[in-house]
């Protein structure tokens, strides 16, 4: 069809991953460009995302779309097969609610729990556990948040189900455990075992040292502040 689809991303970014997984679920071929986000961002990235200067950026026939959630909605509306959002407006609004919850509360708090200082960690961890409990309730006995197949909520929840789980391993925390959150734990296993997910996730052995370094950096910066 002569479509040009590119993703400017970063291999370890959970946000970048969402864009790639969505394209893979739709069977859309794309060119991936890894940006050196901690070093030198490319001129193209700064041109396509002048406001935030961040990855991911989706480029479709020369037009940039930025912010991972905006990208996910765009992909869904542009390639209509294999839908990952419900058709019904009410069900769609419910999915969007959980997506916002994960992005604004769940994921940031869990990340904070990983690197915050000793004296703050207990409070943040308790908050994170409350959010995990709420997120688990959204599963409501289903295999995936999207039902029988992966939906947009699952795509977004990958930041918790995979990236945070790896982070927790490094920190010796075990918040998302099978005994504390059996349904959510099972979901994260089922999700990571889907072939399309498995072949696209950044490998654990690469991610572990990277996240370790990132946490050390956050702790250092926080100590200085």
């Amino acid at each position, binding site marked *: 069809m002569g479509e040009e689809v590119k993703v400017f991303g970063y291999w370890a970014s959970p946000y970048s991953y969402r864009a790639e997984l969505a394209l893979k679920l739709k069977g859309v071929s794309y060119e991936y460009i890894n940006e050196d986000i901690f070093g030198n961002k490319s001129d193209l990235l700064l041109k396509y995302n002048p406001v935030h200067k961040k990855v991911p950026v989706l480029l479709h026939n020369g037009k940039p779309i930025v912010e991972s959630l905006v990208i996910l909605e765009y992909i869904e509306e542009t390639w209509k097969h294999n839908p990952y959002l419900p058709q019904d407006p009410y069900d769609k609004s419910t999915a969007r*609610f959980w997506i916002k919850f994960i992005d604004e509360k769940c994921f940031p708090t869990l990340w904070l729990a990983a690197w915050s200082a000793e004296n703050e960690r207990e409070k943040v961890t308790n908050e994170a556990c409350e959010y995990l409990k709420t997120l688990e309730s959204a599963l409501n006995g289903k295999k995936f948040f999207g039902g029988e197949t992966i939906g947009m909520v699952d795509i977004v929840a990958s930041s918790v189900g995979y990236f945070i789980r790896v982070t927790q391993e490094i920190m010796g925390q075990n918040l998302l455990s099978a005994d504390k959150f059996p349904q959510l734990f099972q979901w994260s296993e089922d999700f990571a075992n889907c072939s399309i997910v498995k072949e696209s996730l950044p490998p654990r052995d690469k991610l572990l040292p990277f996240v370790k370094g990132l946490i050390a950096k956050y702790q250092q910066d926080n100590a200085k502040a």
Partner: protein
Amino acid sequence: MAGELVLLDFWPSPFGMRSRIALAEKGIPYEYREEDLRNKSDLLLQMNPVHKKIPVLIHNGKPVCESVIQVQYIDEVWHDKAPLIPSDPYQRAVARFWVDFIDKKIYELGSKIWKTKGEEQANAKKEFIECLKLLEGELGDKTYFGGESLGYVDVALVPFYSWFYAYEKCGDFSIEAECPKMIAWVKRCMQKESVAKSLPDQEKVYEFILQLKKVFGSE
């Protein structure tokens, strides 16, 4: 299709105003219920157990929470009247980007302007104006962000106008002096009944902020 529609809201909330405007634009009747945020109703706690916040739109007994989700829902259900969100996927993505930008920046920076003093306030004012200027750039020569008619970005942004007077008084600056195009756009929006009727009086909001400042102890 209309069914029973209730909006749980709080009069100065810019987020609540978004849903009020969307419903008014489409001429959809609904019941407005004022919440006392110091004494939240059982209905609010039941309909939004996760966040316990307003606004909550209740349609035939089912809650829709979060203002941007409500506006999208209203637009999708009542899609034949006064569409707010573009139909082209790329234009939709652009609109969503700016609504996300407004959500990430305007409320928080505005809050810092009235809550803080000194250097923190000065930085907030500076960044606030920069954000408005970026939005002015996006508006360009258009009548509204949505083009010839009110759109998603207009609905998301214009409610904050009701807080501008409070920001200006607290921060001792003039938004119009810095961003005349923005104020010109606001005035065009305010000529629409759906907007004018949904926004509270700016002086009332300022009085409300002064009360809050006493509670926060920054006076």
